[in-house]
């Protein structure tokens, strides 16, 4: 899996996901799709990510807190609250806060775009094989 050398049939079985429709939250009860990946695939991913903590952190900091950033949500909340307070107290004009929602972020980008961007990053070359294994062709969804 990590070197992308498995037979296509094995690849199809390992990259398929089980699809569930669940409510996102109490305030948004409409069903949202949730795909659960194969545990073996997750294990291979974790194996490749092991040792890349610093490279990933360097690549995504200081903006992105979802990747290899322990307690990233809490950090983001504290940083933004502190920035709001500081700019309110010291800034030349009062600040506002933008809470942006990207349109269908995980479905709108072509896989070729994702892979070509990843392949440009040499520090993350350990992920190139498994990313190609997962995203180079469509995956099945099992209901």
């Amino acid at each position, binding site marked *: 899996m990590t070197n992308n050398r498995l037979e296509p049939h094995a690849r199809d079985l390992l990259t398929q996901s089980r699809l569930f429709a669940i409510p996102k939250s*109490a305030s948004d009860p409409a069903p949202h799709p949730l795909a659960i990946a194969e545990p073996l695939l997750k294990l291979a991913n974790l194996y490749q990510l092991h040792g890349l903590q610093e490279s990933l952190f360097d*690549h*995504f900091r200081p*903006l*992105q*807190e*979802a990747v290899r950033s322990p*307690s*990233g*949500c*809490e*950090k*983001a*909340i*504290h*940083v*933004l*609250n502190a*920035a*709001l*307070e500081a*700019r*309110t107290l010291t*800034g030349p*004009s*009062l*600040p*506002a*806060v*933008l*809470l*942006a*929602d*990207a*349109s*269908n*972020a*995980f479905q*709108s*980008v072509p896989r070729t*775009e994702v892979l070509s*961007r990843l392949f440009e990053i040499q520090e993350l070359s350990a992920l190139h094989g498994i990313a190609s294994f997962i995203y180079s062709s469509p995956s099945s969804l099992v209901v």
Partner: protein
Amino acid sequence: MHPTFVQSIEGLDVSAKAYADDFSAVATPALLLEVISRLLNSIYGLNLSKTKLLWPHSADPPTDFLEPFTRLGVQFVRTGARLLGGFITVPSDEQVLAATDHLRSVVASHEPMISALSHPSMRKQDSLLLLRYCTVPTLSFHARSTPPIVAAAPFNEFDSKITQCVFEKLLFF
């Protein structure tokens, strides 16, 4: 999404954080308008009906402040707003009250779970394990991300509910 988010704030005096596809920024309204414009021109685009602009101050915003945002369809909110499961506002009396209300609603949302765990049909061991591993940890996140001045009262209410649930299980069934 990372390059898009980075480009949206490049060269601007903006404090920003992203968590996966959630992106939040603090700056003057004029700069935030520029950020929105850059995000709209990216390959992802923005879901404007779910995008919010928060004005957390007691003073009214400048008269020409809202027009460009409402024209785009961005929701305008006052006082405070939910952010990544937490809450963002400025620390003044009115805003602290809003944050406390938000946390009270979080505590109240646990009612069905606590009530189910207190049900006579729920076995003691199952109930206590679910309480320990599934119910209590959700408030731990808020304990780490909310100032004590905001959290004290709602957390006391939550503690009382949990204690009552444990006593009912241990003493009466």
